[in-house]
């Protein structure tokens, strides 16, 4: 599964993009975050405050209870600050 990280999440995790293979028990976005947080302190720091995490599956905003399915990409990022 292709994961993308932007802005402060990218900095904390240390990469803009990675391919991961989560276990079958990971069904939704919340489960994916739980699993990512077991992968090291960078991930822990990145996902510590879920209130300021936004998620997108295939470039569409999703809630954390959204099922993952078989996406082309899943992205995590902080609240946007453009404009």
């Amino acid at each position: 599964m292709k994961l993308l990280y932007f802005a402060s999440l990218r900095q904390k995790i240390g990469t803009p993009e990675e391919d991961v293979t989560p276990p079958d028990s990971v069904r939704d976005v919340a489960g994916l975050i739980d699993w990512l947080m077991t992968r090291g302190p960078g991930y822990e720091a990145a996902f510590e405050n879920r209130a300021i995490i936004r998620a997108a599956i295939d470039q569409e905003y999703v809630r954390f209870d959204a099922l993952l399915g078989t996406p082309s990409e899943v992205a995590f990022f902080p609240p946007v600050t453009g404009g």
Partner: protein
Amino acid sequence: MNHVQTEDFDINAEIAALTKGRSDIGAVVTFSGLVRDVTLTLEHYAGMTERELGKIEAEAQTRWALQACVIIHRIGALKPGDNIVLVITASAHRQDAFEAAEFLMDYLKTRAPFWKREGEDWVEAKASDDKAAARWQARKP
């Protein structure tokens, strides 16, 4: 019609492109957002940005009678006084053009995946922007 680009934009040229050869446009509103006293770096989620801008524009088109609209957003390194974003709306009447431009900016600020960095610090999202975007929910057509 929407663009994400590193280079600056030309408001005259963009208005001319929207209005050229038409006589059904009575009102053109532009909003330009400029960098204030800091140096910024803008990054975005290429692909999703264009989709979100397209959705925001389509939503504006369903809410107001717009002859045309365009959103241009810059990315990369920007210094004080530089342009960041341009929104243009064109309509027969001024109320539509004004409201749609405000709507586009409010939605862009809260939905389009851009992030500003000031030196080493990421700019934090503002509650006032969420509040500004929320007022349009109550007015859904």
